């Protein structure tokens, strides 16, 4: 039974996917070892992994890692909280919403990142400016998801709330939030991804701490070993977090189709 479930269609795709990734990593390792790809450009994956283990064990980058992850967490938290609040307020005020919505629709066309220097003026070089730009990047995804989620609450649920004579608070907690949750969670997932992009990119361009800064520093000093170790750390961390959030997301989406 357990063996049979290993070979259903979707798990088959999953195993195939793992095989494709393993094949790509293996091919890169081979190409580096044979010398097709010079070691001065790309390091073999095994060396990247060894470097990652070393730099985690030595603790040389512990501060940078801590700074980056706490900035991402704070930015994502702020974006989700404020985005939800703004979304809920906009939904309650249709006049304001119709004025703001066309702007929200083309928001992601603007390279927000160009305004990072402005935040450096306002907050100085450091976590303040970085969190601000990450929030700015992430918040609109959450606002849009909130509006979408509240819009799609089935009318029958609102009627049920009326029949049970629920107050506004009880109604929000027991009806609206659970009904909108799958859509809200999609917003959370996007916000976390954007917060990561915002934080790492700003550290890269201009800052004095963080993993992005450490990678840029290692690049400028031709320290390929540390650079690739840190890159692997980011790729693994983002993949792990995204996969986790995606699993929850899929479960919630499945609830919608029930």
């Amino acid at each position: 039974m357990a063996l049979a479930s290993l070979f259903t269609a979707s798990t088959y795709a999953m195993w195939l996917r793992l095989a494709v990734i393993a094949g790509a990593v293996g091919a890169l390792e081979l190409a580096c070892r044979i010398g097709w790809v010079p070691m001065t450009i790309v390091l073999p994956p095994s060396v990247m992994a060894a470097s990652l283990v070393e730099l985690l064990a030595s603790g040389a980058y512990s501060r940078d890692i801590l700074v980056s992850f706490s900035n991402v967490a704070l930015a994502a938290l702020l974006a989700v909280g404020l985005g939800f609040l703004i979304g809920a307020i906009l939904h309650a005020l249709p006049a304001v919403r119709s004025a703001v919505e066309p702007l929200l629709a083309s928001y992601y066309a603007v390279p927000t990142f160009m305004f990072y220097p402005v935040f450096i003026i306002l907050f100085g070089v450091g976590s303040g400016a970085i969190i601000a730009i990450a929030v700015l990047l992430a918040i609109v995804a959450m606002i849009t998801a909130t509006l979408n989620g509240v819009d799609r609450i089935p009318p029958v649920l609102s009627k049920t709330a009326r029949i049970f004579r629920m107050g506004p608070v009880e109604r929000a907690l027991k009806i609206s939030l659970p009904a909108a949750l799958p859509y809200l969670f999609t917003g959370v997932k996007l916000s976390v991804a954007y917060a990561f992009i915002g934080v790492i990119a700003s550290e890269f361009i201009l800052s004095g701490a963080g993993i992005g800064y450490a990678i840029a520093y290692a690049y400028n000093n031709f320290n390929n070993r540390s650079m690739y170790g840190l890159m692997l750390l980011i790729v693994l961390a983002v993949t792990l977090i995204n996969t986790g959030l995606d699993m929850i997301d899929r479960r919630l989406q499945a609830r919608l189709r029930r």
Partner: protein
Amino acid sequence: MMRHILGPVLVILCGLLAWEVLHLLVANSSLPSPLATFVEMGVLLRDPDFWKQAAQTAQAFAVAVVLSTVGGIALGVLLGMKRLAGQVAEPILVNLYSLPKVTLYPVVLLIFGLGISARIAFGIMHGLIPLTLFTMNAILQLKPVYRRSAAVMGLTSWQTALRVVLPAILPQVITGARLGVSLCLLGVLIGEMFAARNGLGYMVTHAMERGDMPTVLAVALIIAAVALAANGLLLALDRSRQP
């Protein structure tokens, strides 16, 4: 129509007002006022050096857009026509999409050197994946009757892709292209901001280092305006294509 535009215009005016207030509040006004920024924009638009930098950025951007559009659609069709390939690739692509690609920029620089090709490659890295995902998912969700009719008429898979599938999924492809174009621009600009000696992204970082805030804001606003115009154009195309 007037009422349609009135709302967003009011919101933008409120934004300008907030900017002015912020300008008055920030200590010794290191944040330029809206008026000063617009004056600087006028100066820049008459400055041949600005146009030289803009041409650099435009060149990298144009090549990146063309290559990522062609590549993204081709890759999306290839993965979409084979269901299993699509299922295998989708989570990998989604994960690549949400990866902070700046992390990988040093690799691009090591491979392509410091020239324009590195920025083009970085733009493609940003723009390719959304278009691939949109194209692939559109084909996977296409009604089976399209593919079956093509098979009945004895079309080869090349003809099916070109004559049946692509026209059927055009609206989704345009949506994907809209996202891809904005991300391409972001990729090229970030590339210029980090390591380049020309282009608008370099102009912004260089002005920032000199503490020349009006230039930073003016360039950023000009880019934002161009990006919004391009997006508006694709959005209009998108809507005219919707049934």
